[in-house]
Each structure stands twice: as structure tokens, then as C-alpha cells.
């Protein structure tokens, strides 16, 4: 890669980083209760116990941090899934990972009365892992192996399976429905900071692993045979990618519930901005993912004020047209 291109890439990364920081600031300031920059600053330097200060410290700040963290994780998970399956439509939502984690959490709430946050996280990881594995295995059987078409359909079927189980449980247990409905729709409203703190270590491991793996992903993207020929342990590599996806997607679902489409939209935008080199692609996708989820969350506060639209619904509204566009374009270009 020549230098000019790299400097252009650095500029893009810097711009997106600034946008991310700005959006975080807006996410703290904007909303039903009016606050300002000054007020935010005071809330942390000279906390006086007023309503606005309380809201900033206990509601707005956690929300902004969670949006950024979850968005970043989902976007990176999306990039890795798309490279692993060579499917431009791959993402945690479409592949049943979200549905699996939701099912596991609903099970835990209604059958085992689980309410501790760390248990939530583990259960969610488990569900995500089971669903991801199921889709991968189901999509990979047969003579042709993992065709993009088959794995997408397998994902849709596994999603349908898990969501009808979830609904079945909720139908027989109305109290649980009340408790988990908002979580199920994918929302980062009213989440406490401890939730993020519980999950954060896993997300961080996922991010770091993802960054370390980028050179190898470049090789894997050239195809299994080439990667093998160049001396990579493809099986081990794929397993690690699977682990990253489960850490990031499972962790995100544990905090925010199933939020779809970030994992599809962001990798494509990032690729068109910066190219397919994973060393650049992964960081940019992470930053963009955080920014998009922050923006979607800010939008969610204004659409039906004073009520809020779950942010998972917002991302679906943004993402579906994009999904259709990619599906129409076909698999070959990606």
C-alpha cells in the first residue's frame, strides 16, 4: 500500500473518531430532560445532587457508553462473520446468534429465576455459542459445504426456531413477558453502568483478539486453500474467529438485548470507505458501529416523545433497506 492511501485512511479514522466523540457528547446532552455542556461538566466536577446532575450521571452517561461499546462490538463481529463465511449478508442478527442468546436469557429468567448480572452474561454467551454453532454446522452439511445461500437460510431457520421457543415460554409466563419485553426488543435505555462493567472484560478481550487477528484475516479472505498453502492453521483460525464473534455478539446481547443490522450495514460502509484490508477495516468498522448506534439511540428518543422507540427497532428501520440493497446486488460483488 502506498503512503498517500494510508494517509487518506488515517484521515478517515480521525474523522470518524471525532464524530464518535461528538455523538457521545450529544447522547449525554440531548433528551427529554434538557441539559447542556456546562451542566454535564459540573455534574462530574461539582456534583450538587440536582435532578439534572443525577440524570447525567446515572442515566445518560451509562447509556452513551453502552451504545458505543455495543455498537463497536456488533460491527466488529459483523466484519469477522462476513469474512469467515464469505457471505456479505452475515451478521449476528441474521445468523440466529441474537435469537439464541435471547432464548437462553428468557429461559434463565422464567425457569431458574436468574437475576444476577454475571449469570445473565454467561447464559447469554451460552445461547449465542449454541446458536452460532448450530447455524454453522447446519449450514455446512451437504456436498457443497458452506454456501452463502445455505448458511443464510440455516440462520433464518434457527432464528425462527429460537424465537418461537421464546414466545412459547413468554405465552405461558406473563410475568416474565413484562420483565423481558423491553430487553427483547433491543434497548439500551435504563441499563445500569454495572451491566457494562460486568460484560466489558469480555468485550475488551474480543476487541483485542480481533485487532491481533487482522493480518491473518487478510490471508483467510483469500480462501481456505490459499491460507492453508501459506502455512496458516485454518481450523484453529476459524475457531478463534468463532470465539471472537461469540464474545462480542453474546456480550452485546447480554447488555442491550438483540440489536440487529449494525453487523451488516457497518462492515459494508467501512469497506467502501477504506478497502478490504482488515488492519484498517476492523478499527474503522468498530468506530463506525459505535457512532451509528449512538446516533440511532439519540433518534429513538425523539420519534415518539415522551415514549421511546427501542433502539433495536431503529437499527432495523435503518438496516433493512440496506440489506435489501445488498441482496439485490447479489453475492458476487460483496
Amino acid at each position, binding site marked *: 500500500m502506498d503512503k498517500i492511501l494510508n494517509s487518506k485512511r488515517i484521515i478517515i479514522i480521525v474523522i470518524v473518531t471525532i464524530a464518535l466523540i461528538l455523538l457521545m457528547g450529544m447522547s449525554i446532552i440531548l433528551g427529554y430532560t434538557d441539559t447542556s455542556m456546562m451542566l454535564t461538566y459540573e455534574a462530574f466536577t461539582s456534583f450538587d445532587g440536582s435532578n439534572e446532575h443525577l440524570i447525567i450521571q446515572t442515566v445518560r452517561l451509562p447509556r452513551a457508553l453502552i451504545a458505543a461499546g455495543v455498537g463497536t462490538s456488533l460491527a466488529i463481529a459483523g466484519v469477522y462473520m462476513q469474512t469467515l463465511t464469505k457471505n456479505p*449478508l452475515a451478521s449476528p*442478527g*441474521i445468523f440466529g446468534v441474537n435469537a439464541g442468546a435471547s432464548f437462553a436469557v428468557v429461559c434463565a429468567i422464567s425457569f431458574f429465576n436468574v437475576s444476577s448480572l454475571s449469570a445473565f452474561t454467561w447464559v447469554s454467551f451460552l445461547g449465542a455459542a449454541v446458536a452460532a454453532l*448450530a447455524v454453522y454446522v*447446519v449450514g455446512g*452439511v*451437504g*456436498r*457443497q459445504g458452506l*454456501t452463502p*445461500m*445455505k448458511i*443464510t*437460510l*440455516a440462520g*433464518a*431457520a*434457527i432464528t*425462527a*426456531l429460537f*424465537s*418461537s*421457543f421464546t*414466545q*412459547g415460554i*413468554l*405465552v*405461558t409466563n*406473563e410475568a416474565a*413477558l*413484562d420483565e423481558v*419485553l*423491553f430487553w*427483547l*426488543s*433491543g434497548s439500551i435505555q435504563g441499563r445500569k453502568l454495572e451491566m457494562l462493567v460486568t460484560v466489558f472484560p469480555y468485550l475488551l478481550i474480543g476487541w483485542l483478539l480481533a485487532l491481533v487477528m487482522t493480518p491473518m484475516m487478510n490471508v483467510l479472505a483469500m480462501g481456505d486453500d490459499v491460507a492453508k498453502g501459506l502455512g496458516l492453521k485454518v481450523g484453529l483460525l476459524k475457531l478463534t474467529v468463532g470465539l471472537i464473534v461469540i464474545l462480542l455478539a453474546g456480550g452485546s446481547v447480554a447488555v442491550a438485548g438483540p440489536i*440487529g*443490522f449494525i453487523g451488516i450495514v457497518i462492515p459494508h460502509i467501512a469497506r467502501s470507505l477504506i478497502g478490504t484490508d482488515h488492519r484498517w477495516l476492523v478499527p474503522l468498522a468498530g468506530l463506525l458501529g459505535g457512532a451509528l448506534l449512538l446516533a440511532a439511540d439519540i433518534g429513538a428518543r425523539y420519534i*415518539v416523545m415522551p*415514549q421511546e*422507540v*427501542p433502539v*433495536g*427497532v431503529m437499527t*432495523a*428501520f435503518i*438496516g*433493512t433497506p440496506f*440489506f*435489501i440493497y445488498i*441482496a*439485490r446486488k*447479489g453475492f458476487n460483488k460483496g
Partner: protein
Amino acid sequence: MRGYRSIRIGKDKISLLLDKNALVKLMFLVMITLVIFIISIGLGQVKVHPFTVISLLFGGGTELDQLVVYQLRLPRIFAAMLVGMGLAVAGGILQGMIRNHLAAPDTIGVTAGAGMAVVAFLWLFSDEKYSLIVSIKWLPVAAFVGASIVAFAVYFLSWKDGVTPIRLVLIGIGISALMQAGTTMFMVLGPIYMASQANIWITGSLNSVTWEEVNVLFPVTVVLLILAFISSRHVNVQALGEDIATGVGSPVQRHRFILLMISTGLVGTAVAVAGGIGFVGLMAPHMARKLVGSSFGSLLPVSAFIGAILVMLADLIGRTLFLPSIVPAGVFTATLGAPYFIYLLMKTKTG
């Protein structure tokens, strides 16, 4: 051809091949359907002996038995049968047309569209005290409209010099996700009682079916089923793939559209009455294929009866095994359908 008999009527204007083997199996399935029909009329909180059931159907029996059977059980069992048939045939058509065994009304988003329409309906037509301002009878209409809109949307969004099956499925999956998002949005915005009501409906249940609904369901389903059986030869051609279908002189796109409309109609009416009973459209055609092979002339009728049996059994289990709580039939079809589906995938050698 041994095992086949050809029938020609009216100077060869109408001619068809009867597969004797399939005919025997079809008769067998009809028998099973009848037996389940009679048994499931008898079972429930008030038990009625099968022989009494038969005499009841011909006008005998006590008044209490009459009431239970005619007012409570018969409509829902009829509905279960028709819904099962509709979903199964719709699934069979879609699988033939899309040439993929994983295609089904659930995967291309038609069911999700109907679900969203129902939730939107409940939300739009409730007043501040959360009671409906229009008759609940309009609910099935809303479901049907939702299913049709989604089917059309998926079809037209997939259009790019014609519709390819792959695009149809992918766009269906996308639209399906959008519909689910819409459904959760309305559920979150609305009151919690509505969410639980809508949730039962989305899971698929035959609990509140009355004769009124059966009276609508019956003629529509029967007409569409007949249309489907007549068009089964077109499905056969479609299943060969676009190139061959064009080569043998079939107007591929037009037939594709007609077939899509028939299956949407079937799904729409079924979903309107019973909600999103999943996996029947996926399972039944597969089972039928195992029994009679993949010629759609025999496949569609056979899968219709398998579908009927599946939904009737799911409903029977749901309302008898877990008394006093009644579990929606959709939960059982999913429990049965998903493992079956995975087993099928494991066994299928070709994609």
C-alpha cells in the same frame, strides 16, 4: 409406465397421470386424519367416547355433549385441519418454486408480516382505556392484508429483470426482520395486556376459533387448494429450474407470480385465523416427499393431509396434556419442526 394410469377426458383436453402408489398412501393419510379428527373431538376437559362422537356427528347424544362438540371443539378442529392443509400446500409450492428445501412461509416473511399487522391493528384501534374501538372480527382481515402486503413487497423488491428464487428468499429474510422489529415496537408502545394477547397470537393458537371464522376459512382455503392442485404441473416445471422451464415453453415469470399469489392466499387465511403456526409449511412437504417422491401432482395433496395431521395433533396436545394451562399449538409445531428440519439437513446430500 407401471404403477401409473393415464386418464384422458374430452378429446385429450384434460389428461393426467394417476400415481397408484401415491393414491394408496393418500387414502391412508385421509384415514389417519379422520381418526385423529374423531379422537380429538372426544378429548378435553369433558371426555366423549369415540363411538359417541360418531353418533353425535349424526345428530345423537346428550345435550351437554352436543354443546361441547358443536360449539367448542368442532370449529377449532376444523380450523386446525384447514390451517394445516393451507400452510403445508403453500410451503410445498414455495419449495418447488424456489427450489430450496428450506423455503417456507416463515422464512420468506409472510408470517411475520401478518404478525406485525395484527399488533399494529391492536395498537391503532385501542382507546385510552385499552379496549378495542372496532370489532375484533376485523383482526383476521388485518392479518391477511399484512401477509399480502409483505408478499407483494418481497416480490417487487426482488424484481430485477425477473425474480430469482435466491433473491426472493434473501429479501424475504430481510423484510421478515423488519416486520419483527415493527412488531416489538408496537408491543413496547402498547399496554402490557396487549403485548401478551398479541404474543399468544404470534405464537399461533386455535383457542378462540368460532364457527364464524371457519365459515370464512373453509371456502377460501378449499378454492385455493383446488387452484393449487390444478397448478401443480406448473410447480413441476418450475422445479426444473429457470432455464429448462423456459426451454419447455413455460411462461416462467407469470407462473411464478400466480404460484406466489396462491401460496400467499393460503398462508394469509391460515395465519389470519390461527396466527403464526410455524414450521408446518417447512415440514409437511418434506415428509410428503419422503412418502411419494417429488412429483407435485401427488406431493401437494399428500402434504396437505400431513399438514392437517400435524396441526390437529399440535392443537390436541396443547389443550389436553398441560391442563389447566393451554399451550399454543405453534409451540409444538416448532418443537417438532426444528429438530426434524435439522435432521433433514444432515441427511440431505445436495444443497
